[in-house]
């Protein structure tokens, strides 16, 4: 029975080497690829070099919906990661899934760290705070919707670039001038549901869904067929028929059409900064989202996109201490400010914003503060954020119905009514599946 002895020796050796390390490994599943993937890797490396007890291991699991699907499968099989990066669209799902996550506030308090949700930008912390006031996830990479402008194209069309268009009438006027000068794609938009319906709503302090856009309960229902919404989509539809607004596809595909110079004005995430500054061969500027000047309360604030970090349930206490230590590291204003400058994601705490401002970054890089200024405002019940179940499907419904308007097959009212009807079916279904 010699081999048994050998096996035992191996086992002892393995165990010894394991305990000699005595380092607790923290798995972090994320969806950051390319330059942002390197960024995540650098964060983990820096954290691991600064202390010896924990080792954060970042693992790329595909884009946002792929990594979430992977985490769901892993959780069902009992081997979920410690930390999961979830996009804002998945927030309601994560919050409603009881026993799946551990609130970030609890982890920080258990770990012995001071955690003050008030230090965060309200529009950010509000998004990730449960109805009972507990902050559920750790804001990691947040962006918001802004207007990207090709200054060269505007100049060539005779549009003043001293002051960018601020309102929708001004944008329409600029688009008309661009078109008259022979421009093929004056205005386009990426993420049409996010920019033209969701952020549009909070920017005008108007509800997209009842119950404060779902922030106050799962029985929220869409009201995105209000006169203001109909008016806006009707305007865009008319612009599409006149060739002033050109549709360039779902998700972020219109971003490429702006970077190539094909489209002059584009609505997209503020996090497009890295790509635009790298690829654009023209002078560009970032402007605030336009609004209708006759709407009371506009402009209010835009809502965030991006993702937050969730701690998954069912891990050892020691491991949660490691998660807390890592979150504490990420809370350092100096680290947050550096991340903001590197990626174009928002500074999520007031302290990191002040620090970035004092460093003179916004003066050297004009326009980088536009997104911040849109966000750092006191939010209202109607603008705090959006939290709807089955949101991935609702976003798709928004895409499907808006396309019918751009193609001239449906009126704005018909399309928005249909979004409300189809979306509410999904909200009812979600409420039923998650009622406690």
């Amino acid at each position: 029975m010699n081999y048994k002895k050998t096996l035992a020796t191996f086992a002892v050796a393995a165990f010894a080497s394991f305990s000699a390390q005595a380092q607790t490994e923290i798995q972090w599943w994320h969806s950051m690829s390319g330059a942002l993937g390197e960024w995540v890797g650098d964060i983990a490396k820096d954290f691991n070099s600064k202390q010896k007890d924990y080792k954060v291991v970042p693992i790329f699991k595909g884009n946002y919906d792929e990594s979430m699907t992977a985490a769901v499968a892993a959780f069902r099989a009992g081997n979920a990661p410690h930390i999961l990066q979830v996009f804002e669209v998945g927030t309601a799902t994560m919050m409603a899934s009881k026993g799946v996550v551990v609130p970030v506030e609890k982890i920080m308090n258990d770990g012995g760290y001071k955690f003050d949700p008030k230090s965060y930008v309200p529009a950010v912390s509000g998004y990730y705070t449960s109805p009972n006031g507990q902050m559920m996830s750790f804001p990691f990479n947040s962006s918001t919707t802004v207007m990207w402008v090709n200054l060269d194209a505007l100049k060539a069309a005779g549009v003043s670039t001293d002051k960018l268009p601020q309102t929708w009438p001004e944008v329409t006027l600029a688009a008309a001038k661009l078109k008259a000068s022979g421009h093929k794609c004056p205005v386009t938009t990426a993420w049409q549901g996010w920019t033209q319906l969701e952020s549009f709503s909070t920017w005008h302090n108007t509800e997209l869904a009842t119950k404060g856009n779902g922030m106050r309960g799962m029985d929220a229902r869409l009201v995105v067929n209000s006169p203001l919404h109909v008016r806006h989509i009707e305007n865009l539809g008319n612009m599409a028929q006149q060739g002033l607004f050109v549709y360039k596809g779902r998700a972020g595909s219109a971003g490429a059409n702006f970077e190539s110079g094909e489209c002059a004005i584009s609505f997209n995430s503020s996090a497009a900064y890295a790509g635009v500054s790298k690829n654009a061969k023209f002078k560009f500027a970032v402007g605030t989202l336009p609004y209708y000047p006759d709407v009371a309360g506009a402009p209010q604030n835009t809502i965030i996109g991006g993702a937050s970090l969730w701690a998954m349930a069912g891990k050892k206490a020691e491991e949660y201490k490691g998660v807390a230590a890592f979150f504490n590291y990420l809370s350092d204003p100096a680290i947050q400010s550096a991340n903001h400058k590197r990626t174009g994601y928002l500074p999520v705490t007031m302290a990191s914003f002040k620090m970035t401002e004092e460093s003179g970054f916004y003066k050297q890089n004009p326009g980088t503060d536009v997104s911040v200024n849109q966000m750092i405002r006191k939010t209202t019940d109607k603008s705090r954020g959006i939290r709807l179940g089955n949101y991935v499907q609702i976003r798709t419904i928004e895409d499907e119905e808006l396309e019918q308007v751009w193609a001239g097959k449906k009126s704005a009212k018909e399309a928005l009514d249909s979004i409300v009807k189809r979306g509410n079916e999904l909200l009812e279904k979600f409420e039923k599946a998650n009622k406690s």
Partner: protein
Amino acid sequence: MLSLGLLILNGDKKVIFKSSWLPWVLIAPQAFIILVFFFWPATQALVQSFQQSDVFGTKVEWNGLENFESLWRDDTYLASFKTTAVFSILVAGLGISLSLFLAFFADRITRGAWVYRTLLILPYAVAPVVAGVLWLFLFSPSVGLASFMLEKLGVQWNALLNSNHAMALIVIASVWKQISYNFLFFLAGFQSIPKSLIEAAAIDGASVWKRFWTIQLPLLTPTTFFLLVVNTVYAFFETFGIVDATTRGGPGKDTAILVYKVYFDGFKAMDLGGSAAQSVILMFIVISLTVIQFKYVERKVNY
């Protein structure tokens, strides 16, 4: 009666085993695979279609026919039956006729035949999503080669907002992907037709087309029938990757075929109950289509 060792060949050309257990052993590996990769998942889908659960599966509830009823209430789901029918007929029809056409000519080539054959078989090695992306680029409105040439011909190509263009795009990508498979079977079919039959007809003065319609095509009916079944199943089940990579079901829902919605609801939106209900419906459609094909179309087949 002719005896071949283990087998007996009786008068009806039917093969009968002498041993009572050997046939079971021989089909066991295949039966095992079908059990694990078909019956087990299909049963799971059937069970899940009557359930409703949250995303992480912490709460699972039976909800009877609710998943099916909510599909019935969804107008866009009902509309996608029509979309699927149009798509499947186009994919199976074009896929089979084009590959028959190609195989007919590849069969007549004498020099360098293997080059043509290899090139024609190549697309089969391409993954559906890659095929989708390939055609998406070719037909991309601002940079695509195909859309550029269409524009030269005066066609304002816009698959983003024009439903017919979008449908054409997914049909082309799906057919292109499947042509190689069909081609292989047709080519083998052509080559198995005895040369003497063709030569005899040629001596009698039958033209190439006459020989094709009266000799080759009738002899190819078993192959054609087999491909009809396989291509229908392909169009119904295996094309979601192509749709996801090209149109994502748009514009509106005009290219959202049934299987794409199964994929989207299950894997992107993580509504397992709803997705399972759809896949059960889809399974019954394909089973009944296959039964119809075997019952009615097979009568026209000469073996």
